[in-house]
């Protein structure tokens, strides 16, 4: 054979003998196409129609980006709300007079049937509490040498400060002695101190309230808005002083001091419900309510219940937004199916040729399926990057901290791949079923 080869190629080149030897040597192949070849062919084909591939991916890009960004924003909003509520304190219960749960208009906001005696009775129960504090709230104008300010006056006891995790910027909170004596001292919220004294020293100064002098003994660190009026705009003083100086501190019948609310912190989270039940029973008994299921004339709000309700709402909202975004992913999938069907038609001859040179139906199926998944996965990764960018921009803008969770990333990318597989299988089957003869003749 070697001489023949030499005759075949000898006239033109010198290395010719080896080329025929190489071509006609026995072949040892694995018999199936390697994955890297499938992937290479898929990306070659997608890159050959760059604009079309990009437009096809756009649906998936937008879908994945919105799922990722919206879930990040939802999580961020939820975390921001939760941390603000937790900054008020932990395991808190709030007792307020009247029924607050019945919606606007129906509740008796002005109810004054919660008294200081109720507070003392609760203390006497010796419940497993970190602390308990009564609040007598009213409004007034604090007058300093250079400025005056309308503030919310909070008369309370020293245990109020640790319950609400107060930190002092300067001075101290009032102590038990000052509380018991009703000493004329005041602790200012951060905004109040700033408005009255600017950047100057507030502690040691005197402010006037209804003409009476109060010594400033402390300034709180700023806490930011809590959603219910910020403590930064409050002035805190011994409850006894407030009761003596303000006329509206009596219950309706005039016999007792009223309180606006009672705040307590339960030692262990699992005791919250039990504590709530015992206080409820005590107050019903004290207020002379029958045990026949008539309505309470007070409201016990649990921070934990509030938080969980809030989390349910934000969770639902996030899921809803993500579902809407998911629909755009689905639409993107239909776009992929559409373009893959066009591609199968366009490449009918190519499919025929590939089959003629030995491709099995399975090879063709895999080829087109991988192309569809490559489209959706590339779109998914680009969408992920876009979603990250949106979340980062929102975080940088300072509105809230939007953190992209691993869950939302895997959900979005996983969904993108599933979309590619689901919408790619039909066009791929169409391609695989093409008869090589018809395919080769196709014009």
């Amino acid at each position, binding site marked *: 054979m070697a001489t023949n080869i030499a005759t075949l*190629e000898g006239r*033109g080149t010198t290395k010719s003998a080896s080329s025929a030897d190489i*071509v006609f040597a026995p*072949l040892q192949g694995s018999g199936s196409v*390697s994955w890297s*070849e499938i992937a290479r062919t898929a990306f070659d084909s997608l890159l050959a129609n760059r604009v079309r591939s990009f437009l096809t991916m756009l649906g998936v890009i937008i879908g994945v980006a919105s799922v990722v960004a919206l879930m990040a924003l939802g999580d961020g909003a939820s975390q921001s709300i939760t941390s603000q509520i937790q900054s008020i304190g932990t395991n808190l219960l709030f007792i307020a007079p009247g029924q607050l749960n019945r919606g606007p208009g129906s509740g008796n906001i002005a109810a004054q049937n919660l008294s200081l005696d109720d507070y003392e009775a609760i203390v006497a129960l010796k419940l497993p509490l970190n602390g308990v504090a009564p609040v007598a709230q009213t409004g007034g104008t604090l007058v300093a040498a250079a400025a005056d300010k309308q503030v919310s006056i909070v008369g309370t006891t020293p245990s109020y400060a640790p319950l609400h995790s107060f930190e002092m910027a300067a001075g101290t909170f009032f102590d038990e002695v000052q509380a018991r004596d009703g000493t004329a001292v005041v602790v200012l919220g951060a905004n109040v101190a700033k408005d009255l004294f600017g950047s100057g020293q507030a502690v040691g100064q005197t402010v006037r309230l209804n003409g009476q002098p109060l010594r400033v003994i402390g300034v709180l660190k700023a806490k930011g808005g809590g959603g219910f009026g910020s403590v930064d705009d409050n002035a805190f003083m011994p409850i006894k002083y407030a009761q003596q100086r303000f006329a509206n501190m009596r219950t309706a019948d005039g016999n007792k001091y009223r309180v606006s609310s009672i705040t307590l912190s339960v030692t262990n989270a699992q005791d919250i419900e039990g504590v709530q039940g015992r206080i409820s029973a005590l107050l019903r008994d004290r207020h002379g309510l029958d045990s026949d299921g008539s309505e309470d004339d007070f409201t016990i709000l649990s921070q934990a219940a509030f938080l969980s309700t809030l989390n349910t709402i934000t969770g639902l909202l996030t899921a809803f937004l993500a579902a809407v975004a998911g629909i755009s992913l689905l639409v993107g999938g239909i776009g992929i199916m559409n373009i893959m069907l066009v591609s199968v038609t366009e490449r009918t001859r190519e499919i025929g040729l*590939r*089959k003629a*040179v*030995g491709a099995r139906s399975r090879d063709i199926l895999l080829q087109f399926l991988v192309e569809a998944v490559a489209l959706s996965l590339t779109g998914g990764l680009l969408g992920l990057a876009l979603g990250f960018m949106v979340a980062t921009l929102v975080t940088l803008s300072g509105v809230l901290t939007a953190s992209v969770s691993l869950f939302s990333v895997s959900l979005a990318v996983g969904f993108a791949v599933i979309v590619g597989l689901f919408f790619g299988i039909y066009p791929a089957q169409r391609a695989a079923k093409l008869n090589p003869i018809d395919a080769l003749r196709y014009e």
Partner: protein
Amino acid sequence: MASAVNRWHDAIGYPLQTISENFMITVTDLKKTYHMGDIEVNALNGVSFEIKKGEFVAIMGPSGSGKSTLMNLIGCLDTPTSGTYVLDGDMVSQLDDVELAAARAAKLGFIFQQYNLLPRQTALRNVELPLIYRGISGAERHRRAAAALEIVGMKERTDHKPNELSGGQQQRVAIARALSGSPSVILADEPTGALDTKTSAEIMDILQRLNREQGLTVVLVTHEYDVAAYAGRVLTMRDGELVGDEKQTPRMTTQVVTMAGVAGK
């Protein structure tokens, strides 16, 4: 029909059974019926012949004679309605889709009138295609494809895409692709149908050399006598039947066109 086969048997002088291992293609009473609505069309109506290893056979006939149907069956692209087909010792007429694909990959190399190169791929990549489906890994595949291109005189054009090549050059690449899987048979379907006379002669020269010097079996479908003249034997089809089977002295290329020489220009 039967007389044509017998005539050839007489010509070569020995009975079918004793020489079957020398046959590359043995076709016996091959029939193919298409259903077009209620009408049955007998595209192939009982065709029998043998092609020896190393023969260069042209199949001729007017359009509608069944030569394309026959080519598809020989090419394992289709299965017969009845009859048997033995290719290189394997009975392929009863194979399923997957086995047919394997038979095409292992034994056949196709050349088409319209070249059918993948337009966005380089010549080298086009030639590698059959090897990809046989699972030949990168370096070996590259070596074989480059060698196949060298054989057809396209060594200098390995990185060109089809639209950068002339029709004749594209057909050379297509021949290299048909060769790259180390086939037993080259099937050429009107390989010069889209080429001018001079280029046609070059292409036929390559096929003839592959046949004579490498011992490759070549089966050529054409309706041009000029092209069929390069073959050593001509089968003539009409109305789904084999009506002629003639041995002839093949025409040799008169011009001195060397494969490497043309490619070098």
